[in-house]
C-alpha cells in the first residue's frame, strides 16, 4: 500500500489504534474535568488543575519514567490494577495508549474548558427553568453548544497522541508491532545509517495524517457552527 514496507504499515496501524483509543478514552474524563474547571468552585481545584497540566511542562521522558514507576508491572498502581482486573500496561499497546492519553489530557481539558466557558449561562438557566435537570442541561445544552470546541479538542488530542514519543519510548519501550508507533519507528530509522529514506517516508505519513486530522476538525467545526447558525 502506497509503497510502504510491512514495518511501516505496522507502525502506522498501531499508531492509529493507539491514538484513537487514547483519545476516545480520554474524552469523557476530559469533559468531566473541563466542566468541573469551567463551572464549579471546589477545594483543591487549583491543585487538580496543576496535576492535570503537569504533562504539559514536564519533559515527556520524565512523564514516561513516572508512568514506569506507577503503572509498571511493579508499580503501585500497575500491580494493583493487575491483581484486581488483570489489566497490564507493561510494554504493550495499552501502555502506549496510556502514555498518549496522559500527554493529551491537558490539551483536551484546556480546549474543552474554554469552549464550555463560552456557552452563555443564560441558556443553561433557561433550560433549568424549563424543568431540565443539571445533568440533562449539560448533555442537551452545554455539550451541543460547545461541540465545535469539543471536536477541535478531540482532534487536538488525537494529533498529540499520534505524535507522542518521549513518554512512550520511556514507558513501554520500542517494540515493533507492539509499542512501536510511527514516531518511534521514525526514531529507529534515524539510528540506522541508511534509514533516511524510510525516515522521510514516515515523516510524510505523519504529516499527511496531521493534515487529514486538522482538515477533518475544521470541517466538523464549520458544520457545528452552521448548526448554530453562526455563519
Amino acid at each position: 500500500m502506497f509503497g510502504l514496507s510491512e514495518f511501516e504499515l505496522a507502525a502506522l496501524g498501531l499508531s492509529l489504534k493507539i491514538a484513537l483509543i487514547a483519545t476516545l478514552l480520554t474524552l469523557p474524563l476530559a469533559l468531566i474535568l473541563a466542566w468541573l474547571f469551567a463551572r464549579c468552585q471546589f477545594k483543591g481545584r487549583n491543585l487538580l488543575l496543576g496535576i492535570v497540566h503537569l504533562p504539559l511542562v514536564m519533559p515527556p521522558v520524565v512523564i514516561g519514567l513516572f508512568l514506569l514507576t506507577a503503572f509498571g508491572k511493579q508499580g503501585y498502581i500497575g500491580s494493583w490494577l493487575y491483581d484486581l482486573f488483570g489489566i497490564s500496561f507493561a510494554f504493550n499497546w495499552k501502555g502506549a495508549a496510556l502514555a498518549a492519553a496522559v500527554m493529551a489530557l491537558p490539551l483536551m481539558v484546556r480546549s474543552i474548558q474554554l469552549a464550555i466557558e463560552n456557552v452563555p449561562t443564560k441558556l443553561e438557566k433557561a433550560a433549568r427553568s424549563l424543568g431540565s435537570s443539571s445533568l440533562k442541561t449539560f448533555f442537551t445544552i452545554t455539550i451541543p453548544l460547545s461541540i465545535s470546541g469539543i471536536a477541535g479538542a478531540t482532534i487536538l488530542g488525537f494529533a498529540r497522541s499520534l505524535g507522542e514519543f518521549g513518554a512512550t519510548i520511556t514507558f513501554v519501550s520500542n517494540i515493533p508491532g507492539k509499542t512501536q508507533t510511527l514516531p518511534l519507528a521514525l526514531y529507529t530509522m534515524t539510528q540506522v545509517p541508511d534509514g533516511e529514506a524510510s525516515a522521510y517516508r514516515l515523516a510524510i505519513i505523519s504529516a499527511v495524517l496531521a493534515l487529514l486530522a486538522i482538515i477533518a476538525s475544521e470541517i466538523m467545526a464549520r458544520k457545528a457552527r452552521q448548526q448554530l447558525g453562526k455563519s
Partner: protein
Amino acid sequence: AKAETPPTVFAAASLTAALDEIAQSKKIKPQFSFASSGALARQIASGAPADIFISANIKWADWLKTTTSDIIVNEKTFLSNSLAVVSYQPQTQTIKKLFQNENDFFVAIGDPTHTPAGIYAKQSLEYLNLWKELTNKLAPSSNVRAALYLVQSGAADYGIVYKSDALNAQNIHLVDILPKNSHEPILYQALLLKQDNQINAKATSLFDNLSDTDAITIWKKFGFQPLKN
C-alpha cells in the same frame, strides 16, 4: 511453549543496523527494542519482557546487575568501539591543530554527563589537553546519532562520535580516530536474562552466537571491534 517464542532483545540504539543484519543471517526474528541503554535498563528493572539486553555502556549493565541480579543468567563483554572525529568540511590538519587554531566552531559530542560516547570523548579530550579550550565550544547531544546529525547538517563543524557511526554516514568527513589509550575501553556488554524464571532457548542460542564468525564479519562491516571471548 515459552522456548518456541522468538526472543526479545533490548539493545542500545547504536546497534540497530548491525543487530538487524545478524538476526537476519541467523534466520531468527527476535523482537527488538532499540532505545538508549539507560531507558532500556530501567525498563528491564521494572519488569520488561527482555531476554537479552545489550548495553552500549558497562555502567548501565552494572546498574542492572546490582538492582535486579536475580534475573541475570549470563553475561559477556563482546564488542568494542573507537571514537572518531568527523567534520562537515573536508580537513587535512590533525585534530590538535584544528581545535587550537580556529576560534568560532562547535564540536558536537554525546552529553559527557551521561551518554557513554560523551564520557569517553571527554576522557580523550582531557588526555589530549583540549578539554579546557573546548568546554565553550561543545554541543552535547542526548545521543551520538544526534551529535552525528549536527555535523551532517552543518550545524556543528566537528563531531566526536563512534567509529561505527562515522563509517557509514554520508555528508561527513572522517578526520581522525582518537587514540585507544586516551579513554577507557568502549565495551558492549550483553546480558542473558530470565523471564518468569524461564530461559528462552532461542535467546540462549542468539546470545551464544553474538560473536561467532558470521556475526564478527557483520560487526566489522559496521565498524565495531569484536572481542575474543
